[in-house]
Protein backbone atom coordinates (compact mmCIF):
# COMPACT_ATOMS: atom_id res chain seq x y z
CA UNK A 1 0.00 0.00 0.00
CA UNK A 2 2.83 2.27 0.87
CA UNK A 3 4.45 1.53 -2.42
CA UNK A 4 1.26 2.38 -4.21
CA UNK A 5 1.10 5.76 -2.56
CA UNK A 6 4.71 6.72 -3.12
CA UNK A 7 4.61 5.67 -6.76
CA UNK A 8 1.25 7.33 -7.22
CA UNK A 9 1.80 8.14 -10.88
CA UNK A 10 2.45 4.50 -11.63
CA UNK A 11 -0.67 3.47 -9.78
CA UNK A 12 -2.70 6.15 -11.53
CA UNK A 13 -1.57 5.07 -14.96
CA UNK A 14 -2.25 1.44 -14.09
CA UNK A 15 -5.79 2.30 -13.00
CA UNK A 16 -6.29 4.27 -16.19
CA UNK A 17 -4.94 1.35 -18.18
CA UNK A 18 -7.41 -0.94 -16.49
CA UNK A 19 -10.28 1.41 -17.20
CA UNK A 20 -9.32 1.71 -20.83
CA UNK A 21 -8.78 -2.00 -21.20
CA UNK A 22 -12.15 -2.88 -19.78
CA UNK A 23 -13.89 -0.27 -21.88
CA UNK A 24 -12.16 -1.54 -24.97
CA UNK A 25 -13.02 -5.15 -24.32
CA UNK A 26 -16.41 -5.10 -22.70
CA UNK A 27 -18.25 -2.18 -24.16
CA UNK A 28 -20.73 -2.84 -26.86
CA UNK A 29 -20.64 0.53 -28.50
CA UNK A 30 -17.96 0.96 -31.13
CA UNK A 31 -17.35 4.62 -30.34
CA UNK A 32 -16.92 3.78 -26.67
CA UNK A 33 -14.51 1.08 -27.64
CA UNK A 34 -12.45 3.67 -29.47
CA UNK A 35 -12.57 5.95 -26.45
CA UNK A 36 -11.37 3.07 -24.31
CA UNK A 37 -8.55 2.48 -26.72
CA UNK A 38 -7.50 6.09 -26.39
CA UNK A 39 -7.64 5.97 -22.60
CA UNK A 40 -5.47 2.89 -22.66
CA UNK A 41 -2.92 4.46 -24.95
CA UNK A 42 -2.84 7.64 -22.90
CA UNK A 43 -2.21 5.73 -19.71
CA UNK A 44 0.79 4.08 -21.29
CA UNK A 45 2.09 7.43 -22.44
CA UNK A 46 1.75 8.75 -18.93
CA UNK A 47 3.52 5.77 -17.49
CA UNK A 48 6.33 6.09 -19.97
CA UNK A 49 6.80 9.79 -19.49
CA UNK A 50 6.91 9.55 -15.71
CA UNK A 51 9.88 7.26 -16.11
CA UNK A 52 11.82 10.18 -17.50
CA UNK A 53 10.68 12.60 -14.82
CA UNK A 54 13.07 13.75 -12.14
CA UNK A 55 11.88 15.64 -9.10
CA UNK A 56 13.13 19.20 -9.46
CA UNK A 57 14.67 18.63 -12.85
CA UNK A 58 14.28 21.14 -15.61
CA UNK A 59 13.51 20.92 -19.29
CA UNK A 60 16.41 19.53 -21.23
CA UNK A 61 17.27 22.58 -23.29
CA UNK A 62 20.96 23.07 -23.55
CA UNK A 63 22.32 26.58 -23.28
CA UNK A 64 25.90 27.60 -22.69
CA UNK A 65 25.10 30.13 -20.00
CA UNK A 66 23.50 27.73 -17.55
CA UNK A 67 25.48 25.81 -14.98
CA UNK A 68 26.00 22.16 -15.80
CA UNK A 69 25.23 20.91 -12.31
CA UNK A 70 21.51 21.22 -12.63
CA UNK A 71 19.49 18.03 -13.29
CA UNK A 72 17.83 17.62 -16.64
CA UNK A 73 14.78 15.49 -17.13
CA UNK A 74 15.16 12.60 -19.54
CA UNK A 75 13.82 13.78 -22.90
CA UNK A 76 13.83 10.37 -24.51
CA UNK A 77 10.48 9.10 -23.19
CA UNK A 78 8.77 12.30 -24.23
CA UNK A 79 10.23 12.07 -27.69
CA UNK A 80 9.17 8.46 -27.97
CA UNK A 81 5.68 9.23 -26.78
CA UNK A 82 5.33 11.86 -29.47
CA UNK A 83 5.69 9.03 -31.94
CA UNK A 84 3.31 6.98 -29.88
CA UNK A 85 0.73 9.72 -29.98
CA UNK A 86 0.97 9.95 -33.74
CA UNK A 87 0.44 6.24 -33.99
CA UNK A 88 -2.54 6.42 -31.63
CA UNK A 89 -4.05 9.30 -33.57
CA UNK A 90 -3.81 7.50 -36.88
CA UNK A 91 -5.26 4.36 -35.38
CA UNK A 92 -8.11 6.36 -33.94
CA UNK A 93 -8.81 8.02 -37.25
CA UNK A 94 -8.83 4.68 -38.98
CA UNK A 95 -11.12 3.19 -36.37
CA UNK A 96 -13.53 6.10 -36.67
CA UNK A 97 -13.61 5.75 -40.44
CA UNK A 98 -14.36 2.08 -40.02
CA UNK A 99 -17.14 2.89 -37.60
CA UNK A 100 -18.72 5.15 -40.19
CA UNK A 101 -18.58 2.35 -42.69
CA UNK A 102 -20.14 -0.09 -40.27
CA UNK A 103 -22.87 2.40 -39.53
CA UNK A 104 -23.52 2.78 -43.24
CA UNK A 105 -23.66 -0.95 -43.74
CA UNK A 106 -25.66 -2.02 -40.71
CA UNK A 107 -27.34 1.12 -39.48
CA UNK A 108 -26.05 0.67 -35.95
CA UNK A 109 -22.84 0.91 -34.01
CA UNK A 110 -23.81 -1.53 -31.28
CA UNK A 111 -21.72 -4.61 -31.72
CA UNK A 112 -24.33 -7.14 -30.65
CA UNK A 113 -26.85 -5.71 -33.07
CA UNK A 114 -24.27 -5.86 -35.85
CA UNK A 115 -23.73 -9.52 -35.12
CA UNK A 116 -27.47 -10.07 -34.97
CA UNK A 117 -27.91 -8.49 -38.36
CA UNK A 118 -25.18 -10.53 -39.91
CA UNK A 119 -26.99 -13.65 -38.82
CA UNK A 120 -25.34 -16.51 -37.11
CA UNK A 121 -24.23 -18.42 -40.13
CA UNK A 122 -20.69 -17.18 -40.12
CA UNK A 123 -19.84 -17.03 -36.47
CA UNK A 124 -17.20 -19.31 -35.10
CA UNK A 125 -18.35 -22.25 -32.99
Amino acid at each position, binding site marked *: MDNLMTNYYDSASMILFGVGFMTLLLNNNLIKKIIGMNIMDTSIFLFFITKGYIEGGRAPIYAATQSQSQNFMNPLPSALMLTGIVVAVSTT*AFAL*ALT*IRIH*DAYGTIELDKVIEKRGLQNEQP
Partner: protein
Amino acid sequence: MKSLILKEVNRFTVIIIYMFGLYIILHGHLSPGGGFAGGTIISAGLVFYKLVYPERSKRIINKDVLMKSICGAITVYGLLKSYHILHGILNHTAEKSLSQVPFAIYSAGSLLVLNCCVGVIVACTFYSVATLFLEGDL
Protein backbone atom coordinates in the same frame (compact mmCIF):
# COMPACT_ATOMS: atom_id res chain seq x y z
CA MET B 1 -22.93 28.77 -44.09
CA LYS B 2 -24.73 31.12 -46.39
CA SER B 3 -24.22 34.17 -44.23
CA LEU B 4 -22.74 37.06 -46.14
CA ILE B 5 -20.60 38.15 -43.21
CA LEU B 6 -19.02 34.78 -43.00
CA LYS B 7 -18.22 34.78 -46.67
CA GLU B 8 -16.64 38.18 -46.62
CA VAL B 9 -14.67 37.58 -43.43
CA ASN B 10 -13.55 34.27 -44.74
CA ARG B 11 -11.97 35.85 -47.80
CA PHE B 12 -9.30 37.71 -45.93
CA THR B 13 -8.92 35.63 -42.76
CA VAL B 14 -8.13 32.55 -44.77
CA ILE B 15 -5.24 34.36 -46.40
CA ILE B 16 -3.93 35.35 -42.99
CA ILE B 17 -4.21 31.79 -41.74
CA TYR B 18 -2.27 30.53 -44.73
CA MET B 19 0.40 33.16 -44.20
CA PHE B 20 0.71 32.20 -40.55
CA GLY B 21 1.00 28.54 -41.40
CA LEU B 22 3.59 29.22 -44.05
CA TYR B 23 5.60 31.32 -41.64
CA ILE B 24 5.64 28.54 -39.09
CA ILE B 25 6.68 26.01 -41.69
CA LEU B 26 9.43 28.16 -43.09
CA HIS B 27 10.88 28.99 -39.70
CA GLY B 28 10.41 25.53 -38.29
CA HIS B 29 14.10 24.85 -38.07
CA LEU B 30 14.87 28.08 -36.28
CA SER B 31 12.09 28.53 -33.79
CA PRO B 32 9.37 26.35 -32.21
CA GLY B 33 7.00 25.06 -34.83
CA GLY B 34 7.74 23.24 -38.01
CA GLY B 35 6.08 21.26 -40.71
CA PHE B 36 3.57 19.49 -38.55
CA ALA B 37 2.31 22.53 -36.70
CA GLY B 38 2.27 24.73 -39.77
CA GLY B 39 0.60 22.07 -41.83
CA THR B 40 -2.14 21.74 -39.24
CA ILE B 41 -2.76 25.46 -39.34
CA ILE B 42 -2.94 25.49 -43.12
CA SER B 43 -5.33 22.57 -43.06
CA ALA B 44 -7.48 24.50 -40.60
CA GLY B 45 -7.62 27.32 -43.14
CA LEU B 46 -8.51 24.89 -45.89
CA VAL B 47 -11.28 23.36 -43.86
CA PHE B 48 -12.59 26.80 -43.00
CA TYR B 49 -12.63 27.68 -46.66
CA LYS B 50 -14.37 24.44 -47.47
CA LEU B 51 -17.08 25.06 -44.92
CA VAL B 52 -17.95 28.36 -46.50
CA TYR B 53 -17.39 27.60 -50.17
CA PRO B 54 -17.98 23.88 -50.45
CA GLU B 55 -18.44 23.73 -54.23
CA ARG B 56 -15.53 25.88 -55.13
CA SER B 57 -13.12 24.09 -52.84
CA LYS B 58 -14.31 20.78 -54.15
CA ARG B 59 -13.54 21.95 -57.65
CA ILE B 60 -10.12 23.31 -56.84
CA ILE B 61 -8.88 20.77 -54.30
CA ASN B 62 -10.23 17.49 -55.59
CA LYS B 63 -9.09 14.00 -54.82
CA ASP B 64 -6.59 13.94 -57.61
CA VAL B 65 -4.82 17.07 -56.44
CA LEU B 66 -4.73 15.90 -52.84
CA MET B 67 -3.32 12.51 -53.68
CA LYS B 68 -0.79 13.92 -56.03
CA SER B 69 0.47 16.51 -53.60
CA ILE B 70 0.65 14.02 -50.71
CA CYS B 71 2.45 11.43 -52.73
CA GLY B 72 4.74 13.93 -54.37
CA ALA B 73 5.66 15.47 -51.05
CA ILE B 74 6.28 12.08 -49.46
CA THR B 75 8.44 11.09 -52.39
CA VAL B 76 10.58 14.20 -52.14
CA TYR B 77 10.79 13.82 -48.40
CA GLY B 78 11.72 10.20 -48.73
CA LEU B 79 14.39 10.84 -51.30
CA LEU B 80 16.00 13.55 -49.22
CA LYS B 81 15.76 11.58 -46.03
CA SER B 82 17.18 8.45 -47.60
CA TYR B 83 20.05 10.50 -48.92
CA HIS B 84 20.69 11.76 -45.40
CA ILE B 85 20.45 8.36 -43.80
CA LEU B 86 22.71 6.70 -46.31
CA HIS B 87 25.06 9.67 -46.28
CA GLY B 88 25.32 9.48 -42.51
CA ILE B 89 25.95 5.77 -42.48
CA LEU B 90 28.38 5.57 -45.30
CA ASN B 91 30.55 8.46 -44.11
CA HIS B 92 30.42 7.56 -40.47
CA THR B 93 30.14 11.23 -39.61
CA ALA B 94 27.28 13.13 -38.07
CA GLU B 95 25.75 15.58 -40.44
CA LYS B 96 27.54 18.89 -40.38
CA SER B 97 24.97 20.71 -42.42
CA LEU B 98 22.59 20.71 -39.48
CA SER B 99 24.13 23.79 -37.93
CA GLN B 100 21.58 26.54 -38.04
CA VAL B 101 22.00 30.30 -38.00
CA PRO B 102 19.31 32.25 -36.16
CA PHE B 103 16.90 34.11 -38.45
CA ALA B 104 18.49 32.82 -41.66
CA ILE B 105 15.98 30.75 -43.54
CA TYR B 106 18.57 29.21 -45.83
CA SER B 107 20.56 27.47 -43.18
CA ALA B 108 20.48 24.01 -41.64
CA GLY B 109 20.84 22.27 -44.96
CA SER B 110 17.84 20.59 -46.38
CA LEU B 111 15.77 20.90 -43.24
CA LEU B 112 13.72 23.64 -44.84
CA VAL B 113 12.70 21.41 -47.73
CA LEU B 114 11.85 18.59 -45.38
CA ASN B 115 9.68 20.91 -43.34
CA CYS B 116 7.86 22.10 -46.43
CA CYS B 117 7.17 18.51 -47.45
CA VAL B 118 5.85 17.65 -44.01
CA GLY B 119 3.69 20.75 -44.15
CA VAL B 120 2.13 19.73 -47.44
CA ILE B 121 1.55 16.20 -46.27
CA VAL B 122 -0.04 17.20 -42.99
CA ALA B 123 -2.19 19.92 -44.52
CA CYS B 124 -3.53 17.63 -47.20
CA THR B 125 -4.04 14.69 -44.85
CA PHE B 126 -5.98 16.64 -42.26
CA TYR B 127 -8.01 18.31 -44.95
CA SER B 128 -8.89 14.96 -46.49
CA VAL B 129 -9.73 13.45 -43.10
CA ALA B 130 -12.06 16.35 -42.43
CA THR B 131 -13.59 15.99 -45.88
CA LEU B 132 -14.06 12.29 -45.39
CA PHE B 133 -15.88 12.80 -42.14
CA LEU B 134 -17.97 15.63 -43.53
CA GLU B 135 -18.98 14.15 -46.84
CA GLY B 136 -18.05 10.51 -46.69
CA ASP B 137 -15.88 10.77 -49.76
CA LEU B 138 -13.10 12.86 -51.09
